[in-house]
């Protein structure tokens, strides 16, 4: 899609509000009561949201900071009901108790605004998990189909960003529907997909088409900006082709080294729950008297209980086995299964870890141990 638009900064608020009329629009904002930056549903915080510094509102739009949690929960919520069940007596034979099952799922139209390139990459990886394989996941897919992604290129690179080390880039717009670049008093809007195109056309009172010459100029500037931001990123490890990482991980570490790097981990779920590509879930039943729900909820592989079998046998009893599995899952196993690394270098896990575990250093150590 070649069309390029521009959006005046002062139009951002009315544009998003107009989009919110028939979609849930998620925007990154800082909650000033507790300093957290997260994606919020615009219609839920609208009256308390300031678009710019200096406004005395509880929430303020934040397009620079990374959100603490990833936007994955818009399409893959922390928990969701899979089905309702109820035991029902047969009126003709009250001895006979039947089971009634029903499924209901809401999949509202959603727009995620202001997500970063790494988060878009991550959604593409989620798509691979839930949309490919022997069967599609209908719950995820339904939400995913109704979701439009509007991302914003990164000019600020944070200390824990490392997207370029895992094959991404700060202006990597390859999985987004619309991509935005900040440019003085306006945003440049690049259209990438049919979905994005439809949204842009429907927004013609806010978006103005750029002429061809400007368009060329914007494009080359976007590339330049991406290059600049990439340069700011500290290089994490010896330059290694993404394809070779799996191989290195297979061979590099022996058990004693895994023990050393994972010893401090306290087996919590923080890194997993903030990670945009972690997708593991548990399925459980909540029953109240004669009816209940079967639901799924995120689970975390660093937990002792994750692989604990009913018999008491636990194949990943120690944290070193669990952490080794986690790193391999991201850099090795999923690569062999799907052909992608399951880390997009967002650095969130590094930031939240209570005990300063740094996946970058561990991967770097693996790769270094394989250097000649």
């Amino acid at each position, binding site marked *: 899609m070649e069309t390029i638009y521009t959006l005046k900064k002062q139009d951002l608020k009315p544009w998003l509000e107009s989009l919110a009329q028939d979609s849930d629009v998620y925007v990154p904002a800082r909650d000033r009561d507790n300093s957290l930056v997260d994606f919020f549903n615009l219609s839920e915080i609208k009256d308390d949201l300031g678009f710019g510094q200096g406004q005395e509102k509880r929430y303020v739009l934040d397009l620079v900071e990374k959100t603490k949690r990833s936007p994955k929960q818009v399409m893959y919520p922390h928990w969701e009901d899979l089905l309702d069940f109820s035991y029902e007596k047969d009126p003709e034979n009250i001895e006979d108790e039947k089971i009634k099952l029903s499924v209901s799922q809401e999949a509202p139209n959603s727009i995620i605004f202001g997500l970063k390139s790494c988060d878009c990459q991550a959604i593409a990886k989620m798509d691979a998990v839930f949309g490919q394989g022997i069967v599609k996941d209908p719950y995820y897919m339904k939400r995913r189909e109704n979701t439009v992604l509007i991302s914003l290129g990164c000019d600020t690179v944070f200390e824990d960003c490392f997207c370029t080390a895992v094959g991404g880039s700060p202006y990597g717009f390859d999985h987004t529907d619309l991509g935005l670049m900040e440019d003085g008093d306006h945003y440049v809007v690049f259209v990438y997909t049919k979905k994005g195109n439809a949204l842009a056309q429907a927004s013609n009172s806010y978006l103005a088409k750029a002429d061809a010459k400007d368009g060329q100029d914007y494009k080359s500037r976007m590339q330049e900006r991406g290059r600049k931001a990439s340069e700011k990123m500290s290089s994490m490890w010896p330059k290694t082709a993404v394809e070779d990482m799996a191989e290195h991980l297979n061979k590099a570490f022996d058990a004693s080294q895994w023990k050393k790097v994972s010893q401090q981990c306290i087996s919590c779920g923080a890194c997993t729950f903030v990670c945009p590509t972690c997708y593991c879930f548990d399925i459980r039943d909540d029953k109240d008297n004669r009816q209940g729900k079967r639901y799924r909820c995120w689970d975390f592989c660093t937990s002792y209980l994750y692989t604990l079998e009913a018999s008491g046998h636990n*194949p990943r009893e120690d944290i070193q086995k669990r952490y080794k599995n986690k790193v391999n899952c991201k850099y090795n196993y999923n690569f062999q299964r799907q052909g992608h690394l399951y880390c997009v270098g967002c650095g969130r896990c590094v930031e939240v870890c209570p005990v300063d575990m740094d996946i970058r250093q561990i991967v770097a150590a693996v790769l270094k141990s394989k250097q000649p």
Partner: protein
Amino acid sequence: MDKTNIVESKHVMAKENPYLPSVAVVKKTIKETPNIISVQVMLEDESERDSFSFKPGQVAQLSVFGSGESTFVINSPASDPSMLQFTVMKVGVNTTAISNLSPGERVGIRAPLGNWFPCQAWEGKKILIVGGGIGLAPLRPLIFHILENRKKYKDLTLLYAAKTPDDRCYKADLKQWEASKDINLAQTIDTACHGWDEEVGLCPHVLEKMKPSPEGTVAVTCGPPIMIKFTLEVLKKLNFDSSHVYTTLERRMKCGVGKCGRCNIGEKFVCVDGPVFSLEELEKIPEPFI
């Protein structure tokens, strides 16, 4: 029913929603050992029942609504998919709930899941089956398949190990097989006890003593992880080729369709790439038996 050919298996994924179970009615429960019970169920919906089929080795997610799902291998003969049998050891909540089921109660079934024994590829070969305790369950439909298609296979040998005579599952089957000329049955228990006149000793040791010839033989084993591990070692020692040795593995499973990430062993998902693995495949995966 055509017993010579197992019809193409219809995966659970034929359903649009792979998480939605089919309702089945408990028909019969059989007490195998003091803490192991077999449950026979029948899909409630007739058309579902008619179109259902599975292959030896495939598993199901069985649930008592309110207690959650657990994974069990379907251990009844694949030639009669109208009645499905599961064997359950009472160890957790769901298994306890299943053990307490009585005929007429409803359960949820998501099946068939996973891969199966490549029985067709083994035609014309000798089959050596080594099972331990409740690990005979996945092997049971395989044994039935071979017995039903007896002419297509050469010798069939089953070595079955249990802690004590009482801990053996499927005692009625064992009795029949003991009398049958179609299968050579050897049984062993861990320590000698009164009235037992068969082998005594751990399964791998007995197997080593038996010295089965690897010539034209496929070996299949299943049991507790530690038994599988040592049995495979013995088979290697006896010069079995890893491509001719099969086992089934267990991991906790949740989704059963390769989504939830729970059941991985290295890059393999037990629910999709397994539960049946050849030793050749396992040799490429790190630490499969822990």
